[in-house]
């Protein structure tokens, strides 16, 4: 299961970033969000979000030297915060620009336990849950 972005629909409102950091950490901080919107130009807004192995080869897990990124039985990739030292290796390895380090910790999508808030509150249908 993963979230697929449809950039042609993205309005760049960044509500997804806000609900993500708010739901997980009770604050708004786009640098703690598991999804990032890159406002590239007036007609290009690019959501960056983890594909949980569907469009990559788990490069982050392979790159991590601290056992801080794991995948569960469903293939959902998550950060083990006790182990993360914020070394940026995962960030550098990720081909989807979907994991980011902020203040010595890595942040990425954890799929909210299967019902992602970002999808719920994307009014433009720019995010889709893909089973698989």
């Amino acid at each position, binding site marked *: 299961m993963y979230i697929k972005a449809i950039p*042609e*629909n*993205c*309005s*760049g*409102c*960044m*509500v997804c970033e*806000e*609900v993500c950091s*708010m*739901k997980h*950490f*009770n*604050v*708004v*901080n*786009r*640098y*703690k969000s598991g999804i990032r919107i*890159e*406002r590239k*130009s*007036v*007609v290009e*807004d690019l959501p960056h979000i983890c594909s949980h192995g569907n469009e990559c080869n788990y490069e982050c897990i392979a790159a991590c030297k601290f056992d801080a990124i794991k995948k569960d039985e469903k293939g959902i990739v998550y950060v083990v915060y006790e182990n993360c030292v914020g070394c940026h290796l995962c960030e550098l390895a990720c081909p989807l620009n979907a994991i980011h380090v*902020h*203040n010595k910790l890595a942040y990425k999508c954890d799929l909210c336990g299967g019902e992602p808030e970002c999808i719920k*509150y994307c*009014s*433009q249908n720019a995010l889709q849950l893909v089973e698989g």
Partner: protein
Amino acid sequence: MYVERGCYGGKILFIDLNKGEGKRQAIGDSFALKYLGGDGFGAYFVNKYIDASIEPFSPDNAIIFSAGLLTGTIFPTGGKAAAFSKSPLTNGWAEGVSGGRIGFALKQAGYDSVIIRGKAKKLSYLVIKNDEVVIKDATHLSGMTTRQTAEEIKKDEGNEFVVASIGIAGEKLVRFASIDCDERQFGRAGIGAVMGSKLLKGIAVYGDKDIKVAKPEKMYKLFEDYYEKIVTHPSFQDDGKYGTGEFLEWMNAERGTFPTKNWSEGVFDNRDKINPYYWAPRYVLKNKACIQCPKPCGKAFVLKGDGMLDGVEYETLFSLGSNCGVGDIEAVAKGNELCDLYGMDTISTGGVIGYTMDLYENGLLSKNEIGIEARFGDGDAMIELIKKIAKREGIGNILAEGVKRASEKFGKDAEKYAVHVRGMEPPAYDVRGIKGMALAFMTSPRGACHLRSAAYALELTGKFWKYEGVDRFSSKNKGKEIADMENFMAVYDALGVCKFSRGIFLLDFYDALDAAIGRGFTENELLLIGERIHNLKHIFNIKAGWKREHSKLPDKFRIPIPKGVAKGSYISKEEEKEMLDDYFNARGWGKDGIPKRNKIEELEIEEFMQK
């Protein structure tokens, strides 16, 4: 404790461009609760830090950016920032509210407002990165568009920076130059020219601090409820498909108040192709939203030839469209893009071009004087004049001064055709048939402006909030209505909430503010703060030399609307006087428009208006 626990950045940043340094000052609870944020902080700081008597291009003028109180929370449509200064167009209060992310970024950097004073030694840009402040050389950016400037600064500073920039119009001190941020504009009243006068080409902000709220769970629940309300509201579909120009046909056919050919008519016959119902399906790639907004009214517009923009907004469909008699959407969109890139307010630009065309058609300006033929309906001429204005070439050098100053320069009968209030070119409401809005044009602190009251919807539909049965053709009882609406909208600008949400939220922000800062405000409490803010803006204008006789309507508003459903309607001198008297009375001001002592005391703003 409200500032500490709530969604405030908590500090004000003072930048001195002369010395190239920044200083910080913490804000306290009593200040925050008295002014809320955004417009409230702006009204306070403008009065506190700008000497109203100075020349707007003096280094002593300031540019102030403020984030709304709710900006940076998840409160939907609450992500606005505002810019303030002394206006080079009206010589009075200037403000622009925008959905660009600069307010959001400032909050994440720990600031509610930034106050920029002085003048750089050479063209520069300002970098604010959390606690760091640096002023950098921008001479290589000279002459660049707003878009190029932002791109270049991001290349040097990093993609995550939010950049506010000016184009060549700001550098050339075009008196209605705007500031661009995220392809959204702090458009009106020429704050971009003030930035140009300070040799400040851009402001780059990066902040990565948490924005917390006093009661996160309550805020999340509110967000969920409001989100549902917003996406099921009829305006979600209308704004989504057609943007702010959705009601263009209605304004023409049903209301007869779509200003046309420099305010000669209230119906634009050649409007079919500037109607979003025509162009949105043909040119729009997707919706564009301000930050924090699930209800996008912006449109990613891609021209068939070369060009792209976020637009075209209702106001610009009027200013570069009907007001110039141009019914070609390609020309209007191209003009819109050029204005955005050069950094010029589209409303004032279209106002001054429509004015030029009117003078040409009536033989008061010749082809020789203009440099081109400038007939109504000529899209190429409209675009050519935009270029001349931005670069101050030929007649553009005069037009860049705005309609008022240009009319004084042209002399003869040119003033009869000049449409402005206190130097500001008016927006897309032919107020001859919307009399409450005629009053609002006179009372808005920044000159002819639809947004300080946003009373057009109330007037045109007859009902909003606590008002119903309002007659747009009557000048009776408009004073309290407009004063109430100005107070109402000042609250929105203080909170940073979009005015297009006013029908959804009204003034029901008690729970949102309780969740955001731990202190709810009733409607009456909010209205008192709105009134305080409005009075402070007016006081600044008084100190800058405002007199009652300056709040007057242009001669063209005395001529009856010639056709359409508003045919025959106009504003007489008597009505103008009656409405102003009624308004001053409703405001607790004297007949001269000066606030009375007891009003100043009631609003607790004695420090800004001595006896």
